[in-house]
């Protein structure tokens, strides 16, 4: 290639870079949120096992183990989920079905499926909203507060987008939250969840990123209570598997049969 032509090509490439750079540099807050959802959540139905250990003042308080089945809802892109308690033994076999705004609790002792409100807690500081899968971009309006350098749950310094999320969907687990998304790879590093009155409910660190279900996803969350920081819940996920979760399973009338679903 003649030198002149080469220079022209280089100039063209430089110009292209200069003009296209702002396009990716200026990702809007909603796009950042969507990208963080894509890192956090698989794109098709799956199952996993979640173990929760809560601590109060440094002492182990409660432990529970749940199996989670999730499927993306056909309308709206949100997940529908089924939770089955494995432990504690007093709750073994109980199911929670979350389908949009509807929440059902099934107790095998009475074979009864009763409706519950989303605010009912699972254990420790973990609410249903912490355990089930959610695409936040479908439920929240995001705004970019700042680009910040934070220390993450593994005590690493990370350059992050600091987003503020306000729920526009009444199905959202929390009215508002702050989220720190890693600028390098859109991994969620930290979140703060707020009550309706704006008070801090809890701070969550997402950590132990590992290759699971076709992506590199967080396998552990550390949840610190917003009022009493000595109240801590560790939520660890394992036994990840792609699973066909038919729509029919996600109905309250199916709940008594759900054990059949295990292969």
């Amino acid at each position, binding site marked *: 290639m003649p030198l002149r032509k080469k220079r022209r090509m280089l100039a063209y490439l430089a110009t292209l870079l200069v003009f296209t750079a702002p396009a990716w540099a200026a990702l809007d807050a909603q796009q950042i949120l969507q990208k963080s959802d894509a890192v956090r959540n698989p794109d098709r139905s799956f199952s996993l096992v979640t173990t929760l250990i809560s601590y109060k003042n440094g002492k182990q308080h409660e432990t529970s183990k749940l199996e989670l089945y999730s499927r993306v809802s056909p309308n709206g892109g949100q997940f529908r989920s089924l939770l089955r308690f494995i432990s504690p033994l007093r709750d073994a076999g109980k199911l929670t079905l979350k389908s949009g705004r509807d929440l059902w609790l099934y107790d095998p*002792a009475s074979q009864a499926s009763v409706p519950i409100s989303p*605010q*009912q807690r699972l254990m420790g500081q973990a609410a249903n909203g912490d355990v089930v899968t959610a695409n936040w971009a479908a439920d929240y309006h995001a705004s970019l507060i700042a680009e*910040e350098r934070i220390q993450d*749950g593994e005590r690493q310094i990370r350059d992050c987008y600091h987003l503020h999320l306000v729920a526009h969907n009444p199905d959202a687990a929390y009215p508002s939250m702050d989220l720190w998304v890693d600028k390098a790879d859109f991994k969620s590093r930290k979140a703060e969840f707020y009550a309706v009155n704006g008070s801090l409910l809890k701070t969550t660190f997402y950590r132990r990123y590992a290759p699971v279900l076709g992506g590199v996803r967080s396998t552990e969350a550390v949840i610190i209570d917003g009022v009493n*920081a000595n109240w801590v819940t*560790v939520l660890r996920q394992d036994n990840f598997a792609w699973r066909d979760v038919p729509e029919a399973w996600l109905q309250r009338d199916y709940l008594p049969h759900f054990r059949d679903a*295990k292969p």
Partner: protein
Amino acid sequence: MKKRLPFCWLLALAAPAMAQDDATLTALDLADNAEFTAERDKTLNMMFEAASSTDQQARKEQRASLDMRWDTPLGQHWRLLLSDRLDSRFSHRLSETRYINTLREAALSYALTPQTLLDVGRINTRYGVAMGYNPTDFLGRGTVRSVTSADPETLRNNRLGNAMVRLQHFWDNAAVTALWAPKIRSGTMQRSGSLDWQASNPRERVLLSASYRFAENFNPQFLLFQEQQRSPQFGLNLSRVLSRSTLIYGEWAGGRQPFSWQETLPESQWDVAWRNRAAVGIAWTGENHLTLRLEGHDNGSAQPVPGHLEQHRSVLVQAYWKDIVDQYDLNLIAQRDVQQHQNMGFAELRRHFGAVDLALQWQKVYLATTPERRWQLSLDYWF
């Protein structure tokens, strides 16, 4: 040196954002050292309960109960379910020991297709969304063999299922159920080990139910119930989440029938008319996990007659506070019969110790027209 100065400034400016406070570091240290032990997914769950109770006449009673539930798949399509409870009651003289066995469920399930399921055997079904009174729970009447608590939830857990054949089919947004429960009259109710078919299957019965998810937050359930030599009864169950904290629900059943107390009389003496039964309620859960519930009940089939205590109109109030103090749950239920002006109550303080629960209960119920107050201390162990 000059070159390093801006870097120091940067560090100083960034420090507040990066520094994690001591509590956060302590929490992360805890998480680093968390030990996750392997726990098996059990098919057999058992619970032992020891309870001691005393009433206002200082009459004491002790009880030991064994509760089991075995739910296991048998190959890919079959599933076996066994659920049983044995209550043994004794006073200070052990010669007065009485046993009552409640075979709640014994059923086989077969998946004809992933969406079509067939069940045969004794099966517990519960319809209804309310807590204190379920007019659509057509198959649940008279199936409690051993009353261990006045808590409506406990009463529902410790009851007999009905012998039936049940077929269910599911679509993406809908489900239909058809069940046939034959009349079986054998076994004596008083016998401790009786299967008590008279209580669970007194007449031939057919129940059809269907639910359809019209929207994510609207999934009503419709019921049609037909009993041998009775008029068909209709039912409807509704619930709706209003906000993160608030849920409303209601259920209704209606059809031509006599007053409940007339059912033991010859049919010629029945006063048959269309009668409605309904329960509506609202439940609110705060951010501190206190749940408050208010329910209204209207039983059009009940008519106040001497010796019959069925309530016509009543109001139920519940306050349930999980973890009111570390590991303590408090459950208060008050119910008022607004026609007979009688108050019933249930209060429980429950403490969790790992696999053990310790509970102190106070309850006030009516036996005929006489109120009975009772204290009960119980210890539950799951294994």
